[in-house]
């Protein structure tokens, strides 16, 4: 784990309000596992104050890692305006990444919107024709072209909420359609996206007893397990057991989490 002023290699729009940024850091590239994230300070001002967490979305060679981010507020807007050659304060890699599927397993990756970021890195790392990648978007304009990430010849399925591309409906319907049939017990699911989507994935995989890992998002202050701000409720008989997303996650086995009313 390092905390370093890190040089920006590129920072460009890849879809409306969605940017891909490449950052130069041999240490982060060497240490990063899919599912891990970095904390980045946007701007030099004390407002916005806190660093923002971003999943490591891909690595390029030995020196460059990427983040894929959507502009949703002030921090991401500031980032979107930073130009090549400048530096950002980057802390990482942080958190617990995905456990890789075993060689005989059939991995399904399910991404909702910008939740695709950590899953691209995971797909890069699994690097197998056996993998099925399902990506859901609201509209076809939001689709992040996967060609840039030199993924192997995996199956890629798209769903859009408005039917402008691929399956018309939530991405979880794509998953649902593939949960029955032969080799059921070899399936394993990896998901990241908005909470309602993850809840649906949790339901589906629980019902089918399919192992499933999800990557969660919460507000974070430190990213280091120090502030205890990033709590999520654990699936525990005791009512008030919490995990800390930055340290115990962001990737969790769905069965360890509480999926009741949030």
């Amino acid at each position, binding site marked *: 784990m390092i*905390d370093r002023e890190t040089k920006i290699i590129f920072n460009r729009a890849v879809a409306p309000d969605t940017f891909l940024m490449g950052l130069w850091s041999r240490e982060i590239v060497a240490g990063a596992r899919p599912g891990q994230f970095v904390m980045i*300070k946007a701007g030099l001002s004390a407002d916005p104050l806190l*660093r923002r967490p971003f999943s490591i979305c891909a690595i390029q060679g030995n020196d460059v890692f990427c983040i894929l981010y959507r502009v949703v507020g002030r921090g991401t807007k500031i980032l979107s305006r930073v130009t090549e050659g400048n530096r950002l304060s980057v802390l990482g890699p942080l958190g617990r990444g995905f456990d890789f599927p075993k060689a005989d397993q059939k991995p399904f990756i399910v991404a909702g919107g910008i939740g695709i970021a950590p899953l691209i890195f995971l797909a890069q790392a699994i690097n197998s024709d056996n993998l099925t990648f399902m990506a859901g978007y609201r509209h076809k304009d939001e689709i992040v072209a996967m060609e840039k990430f030199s993924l192997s010849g995996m199956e890629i399925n798209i769903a859009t909420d408005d039917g402008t591309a691929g399956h018309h409906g939530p991405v979880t319907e794509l998953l649902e359609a593939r949960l029955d049939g032969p080799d059921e017990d070899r399936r394993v699911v990896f998901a990241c996206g908005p909470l309602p989507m993850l809840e649906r994935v949790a339901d589906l995989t629980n019902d089918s007893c399919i192992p499933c890992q999800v990557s969660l998002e919460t507000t974070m202050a430190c990213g280091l397990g*120090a502030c205890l701000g990033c709590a999520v409720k654990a699936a525990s008989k005791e009512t008030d057991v919490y995990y800390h997303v930055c340290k115990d996650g962001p990737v969790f086995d769905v069965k360890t989490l509480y999926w009741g009313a949030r």
Partner: protein
Amino acid sequence: MSQTHLKVKIGPLELKNPVLAASGTFGYGQEYADLIDLNLLGGIVIKGLSIKPMSGNPPPRIVETPCGMLNSIGLANVGLEAFLKEKLPWLRKLNTAVIVNIYGHSTDEYGAVSAGLRGIEGISAIEVNISCPNVETGGMAFGTDPDVAAKVTEEVLKNTDKPVIVKLSPNVTDITAVAKAVEKAGAHGLSLINTLTGMAIDIDTRSPRLANISGGLSGPAIRPVALYMVREVVKVVRIPVIGIGGIINYQDALEFLIAGARAVQVGTANFVNPRATLDIVEGLRKYCEDRKIASIDEIIGSLKGNTQPGE
């Protein structure tokens, strides 16, 4: 490395420099060990410790605000037993002051945590957080009533062999009254300020942004308030004061030292810059060296009366 003496004393407690990490923002120290050499710090104040482990408040627990943040962590901690078994052995190996921040929901609980730490090696001092709700008096914090604050202080002193620093709440009409009461009760030092109470609302859902509704405001936003309170307290007590509140760089730390704080604690800044404490130590050293100041003591309390026209 340098000629400037940065050593300071908080009553019986000697610190190698006046920069401490604040309670609740530095975990149990270990969380930052990969990033900075903790032995270069004046000390570490551990997350608030209670008798029993506490899991804290439901999420969301933090929200960013202008130049600050609100937290409603709810004093989540591993509890006395686990602290002694799992955290302290690692902390003991450090060559820096380890101060344990403690709290309770009743005077007895304060006494019990103190007693549990009695005779234990590797603990440099106790910092008593009196900002938590007082169950005995029905919710108002221990720190808002001078008499109650004094009683808690006495109870802790009775049950400990360590120097006792009492951490004051800023959510009071007159912090100097609490400070004086705590001094009279025998505390070795004071630290201030804890967080200001605040809240934020999500205008889309029309609900509070924190599950706990309100939380504690920290960060640069509160610095002017903290500095004012430190100065007011320094004027009326003789025991050392540790300044806390919105310190993010050495210049901020200097403001508190000049105002009369004997040391400072750095809280929220650790989240923004994990090196903040060390950067401040280095910045203070350089400031002194550049000005040929032999000892940080020359800075402490050196605030000049104002010399503006008309005064």
